């Protein structure tokens, strides 16, 4: 219980990982941001019933996570945050779309389930690549890359603040819950308590966000994101970006699992 706040704040660990020194960490943030964008584009361009063709795309987040030494448990926890959205968006698919599209042994698979699975896979893949991206680049790195890629500064600053204030919100929430827990005598949070607590939380977050902003202004912050490392786009970065883009293109055009399936069954015929 006493560690509730710490556990919450551990979610911010990703940011400290961003300042490590693996080969991946040292790549130009722009290469990583662009590769991730290409990845998201390729994944989301698949048809709504496609499942098998998406599977090889796991290679991108998984290999980066391994090379960048991003802990698996941490990665899973973060991706878990995306699951409620998957359910929210896709829960009606199996109900609405009952046409049987596929027969796996005795099991008929409806279009609804296929599209649900496909969407879940797309979301999880994109979420995973985003989490890994921030872990091996740091949020400041991502922001700087966006800025140098031509995104207007206002948006970049907003994204940076959104990220920072999410942690402030979580931290304040943890403090409040802890204070409540210590005096609650073991009672669960009731929905009658919840309203005022949430309102108070927003006010506190707003207040603190403002003080942090003032502290940033006091130290000369003028909207631009600066990093100690200001990398230039080199050969390695181009190779990284190029190789992944080619891989995405190939995987998008050639359905690898299907191909292997036909090769195997073709050999058996």
């Amino acid at each position, binding site marked *: 219980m006493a560690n509730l*706040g*710490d556990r919450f*704040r551990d979610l*911010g*660990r990703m*940011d*400290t990982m*961003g*300042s490590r020194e693996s080969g991946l960490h040292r790549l130009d943030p722009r290469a990583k941001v662009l590769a991730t964008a290409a990845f998201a584009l390729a994944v989301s361009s698949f048809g709504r019933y496609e499942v098998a063709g998406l599977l090889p795309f796991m290679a991108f987040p998984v290999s980066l996570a391994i090379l960048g030494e991003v802990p698996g448990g941490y990665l899973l926890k973060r991706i878990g945050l995306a699951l409620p959205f998957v359910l929210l968006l896709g829960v009606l698919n199996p109900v609405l779309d009952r046409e049987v599209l596929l027969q796996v042994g005795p099991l008929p698979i409806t279009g609804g389930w296929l599209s649900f699975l496909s969407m879940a896979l797309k979301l999880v893949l994109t979420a995973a690549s985003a989490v890994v991206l921030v872990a091996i680049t*740091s*949020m*400041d790195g991502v922001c700087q890359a966006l800025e140098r890629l031509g995104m207007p500064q206002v948006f970049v600053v907003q994204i940076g603040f959104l990220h*920072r204030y999410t942690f402030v919100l979580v*931290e304040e929430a943890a403090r409040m819950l802890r204070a409540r827990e210590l005096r609650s005598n073991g009672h669960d949070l009731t929905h009658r308590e919840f309203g005022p607590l949430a309102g108070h939380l927003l006010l506190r977050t707003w207040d*603190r966000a403002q*003080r*942090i902003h*003032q*502290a*940033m*202004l*006091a*130290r*000369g*912050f*003028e909207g*631009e994101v*600066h*990093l*100690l*490392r*200001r990398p230039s786009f080199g050969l390695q970065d181009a190779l990284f970006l190029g190789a992944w883009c080619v891989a995405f293109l190939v995987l998008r055009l050639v359905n690898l699992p299907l191909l292997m399936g036909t090769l195997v069954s073709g050999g058996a015929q």
Partner: protein
Amino acid sequence: MSHHIVEAIDLCHCYGDGTQALTNITFRIHHGESVALVGANGAGKSTLLQHLNGVLLPTSGTIRIGEVPLVKETLRDIRRTVGMVFQDPDDQLFSPTIGQDVAFGPLNMGLPPADVAARVHEALERMEALHLKDKPVYRLSAGEKRRAAIATVLSMTPDILVLDEPTSGLDPRARRQLLGLLKAFRHTKIIATHDLDLVLELCPRTLVLHEGRVKADGSTREIFADQALLTACHLEKPLTMQGCPKCGGIP
């Protein structure tokens, strides 16, 4: 070198909700002076300090830093001159690691990376916090947080240091360590505090604030000997002076 002067002339501040926090504040602090700002909770200390580098702007009256009036056009230079350490280190330390946080100011000043790295090293070393460089903020003790927060400001090499309750929440040892470090600074210092023993040790001059007004401005020794004044402003004599009211006990 007279350009480290801090001056307030008829300064008034009224918050958005109508709270009159400061009324007709006037003072002049000279280069190299170390001045304490004391007063009860809500007396207006933080509000006053936040005017010194333009976090808040006066409702009326002026602030001058080294004979330059604080206005929008001069804000940028003044923020380099006046380093402000906020009351709550958690507000000051917003980057993922301490090292990055200390680098934030110099990077915003547009210094090349090598210079930034040197300044980070120097500031952390000065605050005996070099070992904290790669640590995340929430893993630090209160004393470490405070030293790190001061380092974030030192790395910008300000001429004037403004500290809001630097020793609040510290244990005696951390407080003693911080006092030693602050004592070594050659900067012009303005320190808001309830720690009157700290004032005795660090600040020859004291400004007493009460309900948004300057109640007294003068030698620390004399002010702390004025029991009537202290009582009127809800202050208590420092512990080191309580046992021996005659000699004052200033080391």
